[in-house]
């Protein structure tokens, strides 16, 4: 029973990690909280659902489609709500982007409501669910896909951040934007690419969450939003390992709490973890940038 819960939690945690990575990448290069990121995730789920429903897309196409779609939305958010706030030589203060991205949440969520309606809708299924039994626990095909795809994407991200030009540039900008400028790094371009990558990951997470919960709604962005922030506060803002590990931990804690405590307090655990780490080690488990 315990192992089963752990596996369920791990699968859920993978999706959380993908989402948290986006938050942490954006915080790393801009030092701001992008509240609209949760809605980007939601848009990913919506796009994937519609691709499967109306274009008979298979898993791969739905994945690529939602990632491209969310990439575009993410870039638009950066161009329209963040870029206009920057000015010469002065650093970006944290509150204005918070407000503009909050405005973007309002716009995005409402637009989606107008297009697909406000109710929770069933996410179309792609394959026959199969369970692989291992004695005292079982792993479903959904969970295998989620864990597989998540780890693949996280591995790709790791390689990209460590080896590519963008990755190195991003790490430089995250540490010291002014010096990055002086090294010839196109800071604005790097930020744009960071947004694109973060949003694509959110899109993938949207598809995976839709598949595992069999449902999606325009409100899932805000619902998951606070959890995303809680994870990066817990793991360390701007810290990629922190986002990955934090997401997995939250997933497992949530599922275990449902199994052993009341299910109605599940959503409060994210918040609890956040308060805990703020009181004990405010820079986060792995330290922030």
């Amino acid at each position, binding site marked *: 029973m315990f192992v089963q819960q752990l596996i369920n939690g791990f699968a859920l945690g993978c999706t959380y990690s993908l989402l948290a990575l986006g938050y942490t990448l954006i915080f790393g290069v801009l030092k701001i909280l992008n509240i609209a990121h949760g809605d980007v995730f939601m848009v990913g789920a919506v796009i994937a659902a519609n691709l499967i429903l109306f274009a008979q897309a298979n898993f791969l196409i739905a994945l690529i489609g939602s990632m491209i779609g969310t990439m575009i939305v993410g870039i638009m958010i950066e161009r329209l709500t963040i870029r206009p706030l920057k000015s010469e*030589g002065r650093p970006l203060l944290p509150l204005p982007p918070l407000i503009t991205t909050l405005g973007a949440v309002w716009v995005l969520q409402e637009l989606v409501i107008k297009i697909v309606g406000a109710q929770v809708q069933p996410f179309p299924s792609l394959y026959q669910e199969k369970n692989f039994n291992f004695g005292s626990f079982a792993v479903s095909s959904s969970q295998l896909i989620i864990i597989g795809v998540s780890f693949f994407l996280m591995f790709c991200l790791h390689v990209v951040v460590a080896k590519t030009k963008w990755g*190195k540039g991003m790490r430089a900008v995250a*540490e010291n934007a002014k010096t990055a*400028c002086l090294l*010839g790094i196109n*800071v604005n371009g790097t930020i744009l690419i960071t947004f694109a990558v973060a949003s694509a990951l959110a899109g993938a997470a949207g598809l995976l969450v839709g598949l595992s919960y069999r449902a999606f709604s325009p409100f899932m962005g805000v619902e998951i939003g606070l959890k995303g922030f809680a994870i990066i506060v817990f793991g360390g803002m701007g810290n990629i390992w922190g986002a990955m590990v934090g997401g997995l931990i939250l997933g497992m804690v949530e599922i275990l709490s449902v199994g052993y405590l009341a299910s109605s307090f599940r959503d409060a655990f994210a918040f609890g973890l956040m308060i805990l780490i703020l009181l004990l080690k405010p820079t986060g488990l792995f330290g922030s940038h």
Partner: protein
Amino acid sequence: MLEVNDVYVSYGHIDAVRGVSFHIMKGEIVTIIGANGSGKTTIINTISGILRCKKGTIQFLNKNITQMAPHNIVQLGLVQIPEGREILTTLSVQENLEMGAYCRKDKKRIQQDLEEISLRFPVLRERSKQPTGTLSGGEQQMLAIARGLMARPQLLMMDEPSLGLAPLAVENVYQMINQLKKEGITILLVEQNAKKALLTADRGCVLESGKIVLSNDAANLLLNDKVKEAYLGAEKQV
């Protein structure tokens, strides 16, 4: 090579730089000396494109770079070594050097340069894989200079290279600068340590409250009474 014409830079309502003009020719070392807050870093950051000037023009290699984006300016070969070194601590020494060549595309030459640089800066070669936190102030300055050289600059701008360094380290830094001078690298040296700067440079400008008040050959400035009183008197302990 570099022409700064009548440049005005302000922070909000505060005018930091007022009508500054000077030029640098190939192979020269020009120094700008002045007290804290006189506007030296502002000028250098404006040339690098990090700040925008209200009025005036800046030309580099006959191109107008006044409105150019900072990363494009670096690609032209105008490289700044910032005040306080600004080493990237999340990268190793080696990676910092590689970052210096970020905007270059010639992979093979970059490899060659990396090897040359480590020959020239033996201290860095010893510590190449180490995190940068283990370097002393003087070693960090060497790393910053090496990193700047990795970009194969046409013009190297150094903002207060002696700041915060022990006298021995300052000696080493200036030995390196003199070495670069012999190799014909054009340098703009911004300094508070007027004596060292004027001894090394060919020409100098004195900056006070955002304006250039004196401009002459370095040798003459060293003998100038006003300069001696204001900037050289306090340098006795160097």
